[in-house]
């Protein structure tokens, strides 16, 4: 039994009109898609970078980091990107920092840069030796995940370190058991390997006979001192106080790291935003032109609709609805394309601009997609509204006899 034929409602009429000229409709969709993809990718990068900084700095567990004066920039890169660094200062610095009024607790860390692996395909790794008795970074996670301290031959690896768990890794001739993998932070910690400071010292001693190239760490030296403050809101003032009280060191605050990341993000946005603006402008112009042509072409049709009783609002709504539907399709496709392209080139982009990134939760990504789609539909509707209104305001007689 065939279905009864129903009169075309506004939605059916809109769909019919869009499919009548698929080439023209696809051009409009592609223009909106490009604009939506750029805007969506930009929003995703901004949100993911801020999310990574928030999670990463939280996981660091310290309010300040004290490092040798010349190592501030290298430490920033190591913290954000996990680029291996190795610098040392006298271990007595930890005690001197702890003695500064306003400091609650301190913990020393020793940094080691591994030799590049000859096998395919592990590069250099960033080893961080921590003091299990005082550590602020790994120990809270360790108790939650393993419920025990690390044995001298055990290591923890960051979320992006390529290894089997349980498995083994060899550094400077010494073999370690991988006890666990930390949760992702989007920052340098994901590329790092954590082990007790005593194991670093033992590895350095053994490297003389076991490694291709011995590991030289001055006895009792540390690379950085992680500091927790009595009042974390005073971090900038305390950083200056520590730098004045302990010679040869600089203190890095969480705020400084965040500001550095924001600066790098601004660099990326400085070329992404003009592209997004340009593509948006082109898409809006294209839509305006396209719907001017469509309304002129359909003047007779609109006049007939008005003559058989359609109101001005209904005539405008048919055209604006068509534009909004095209915009929404383009916006949705753009959000999908932006997500796909960003997923593909995410690492290259972040390495190029030195940015951390942690995927926001799926709900947040979906909300961004909905916003971009709604924005594209609104923009398209707005650009089509003026020509649609102009033609709908004509008397039906003039509209029917207008030359499209």
């Amino acid at each position, binding site marked *: 039994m065939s279905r009864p034929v129903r009169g075309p409602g506004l939605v059916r009429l809109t769909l019919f009109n869009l499919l009548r000229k698929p080439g023209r409709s696809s051009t409009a969709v592609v223009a909106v898609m490009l604009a939506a993809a750029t805007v969506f990718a930009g929003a995703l990068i901004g949100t993911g970078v801020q999310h990574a900084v928030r999670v990463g700095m939280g996981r660091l567990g310290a309010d300040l980091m004290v490092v040798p004066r010349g190592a501030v920039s290298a430490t920033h890169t190591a913290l954000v990107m996990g680029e291996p660094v190795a610098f040392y200062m006298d271990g007595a610095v930890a005690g001197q920092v702890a003695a500064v009024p306003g400091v609650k607790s301190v913990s020393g860390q020793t940094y080691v840069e591994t030799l590049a692996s*000859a*096998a*395919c*395909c*592990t*590069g250099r790794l960033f080893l961080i030796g921590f003091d299990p008795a005082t550590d602020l970074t790994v120990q809270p996670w360790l108790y939650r995940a393993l419920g025990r301290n690390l044995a001298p031959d055990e290591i923890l690896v960051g979320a*992006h370190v*390529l290894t089997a768990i349980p498995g083994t890794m060899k550094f400077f001739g010494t073999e370690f058991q991988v006890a666990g993998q930390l949760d992702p932070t989007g920052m340098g910690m994901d*590329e790092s390997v954590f082990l007790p400071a005593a194991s670093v010292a033992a590895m350095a001693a053994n490297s003389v006979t076991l490694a291709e190239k011995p590991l030289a760490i001055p006895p009792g030296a540390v690379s950085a001192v992680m500091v927790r403050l009595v009042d974390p809101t005073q971090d900038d003032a305390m950083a200056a106080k520590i730098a004045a009280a302990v010679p040869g060191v600089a203190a890095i605050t969480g705020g400084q790291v965040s500001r550095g990341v924001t600066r790098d993000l601004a660099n990326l946005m400085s070329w992404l935003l003009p592209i997004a603006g340009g593509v948006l402008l082109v898409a809006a112009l294209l839509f305006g032109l396209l719907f001017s042509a469509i309304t002129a072409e359909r003047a007779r049709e609109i006049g007939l609709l008005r003559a058989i009783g359609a109101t001005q609002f209904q005539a405008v709504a048919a055209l604006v609805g068509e534009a909004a539907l095209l915009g929404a399709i383009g916006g949705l496709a753009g959000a999908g394309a932006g997500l*796909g*392209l960003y997923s*593909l*080139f995410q*690492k*290259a982009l972040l*390495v190029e601009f030195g940015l951390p990134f942690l995927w926001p939760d799926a709900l947040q990504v979906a909300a961004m997609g909905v916003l971009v789609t709604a924005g594209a539909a609104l923009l398209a509707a707005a650009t089509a509204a003026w020509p649609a209104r102009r033609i709908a305001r004509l008397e039906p007689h003039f509209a029917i006899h207008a030359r499209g």
Partner: protein
Amino acid sequence: MSFLSRNWRGLSVLVLGVGSVLVTHFVLKDCADVGHMMKTASGMSAPMRCFYTERAVDVVGGLVAVMGLVMLWQREASRAVSAAAAAAGLVLIAIPLWLLPTCPDGMMECNLSLKPGVIMLGVVITVVGLAAAVQSRRIVNTEASA
């Protein structure tokens, strides 16, 4: 009907095929391009596996270009050849992911450049191949009904 509107399917596939070979060869980078080599037990240097990924992509890109030429010369075969080009696009996507995967460390040059670039090329070739196949079907149907 102009030359372009008659032959856009073949031309697009040809350009995408030649483009894949050129872009993979001159723009996208594998580890060997930035001097990363593997040391064998005998002390010799050998290219890492992403080197062969690039070679495989070159071969499939070349085949896509040949399909484009066939579509230009034998227009009646365009529908089937477009579908084959779409399938070749899927093969391109599969090369760096499963068939000849790039190096395992996500931060190595091949994973930052070659792998995402080839996947993107594969997606574009698949979409264009499918669009060309659908469009060819429409032409065939129109001609049949006429």
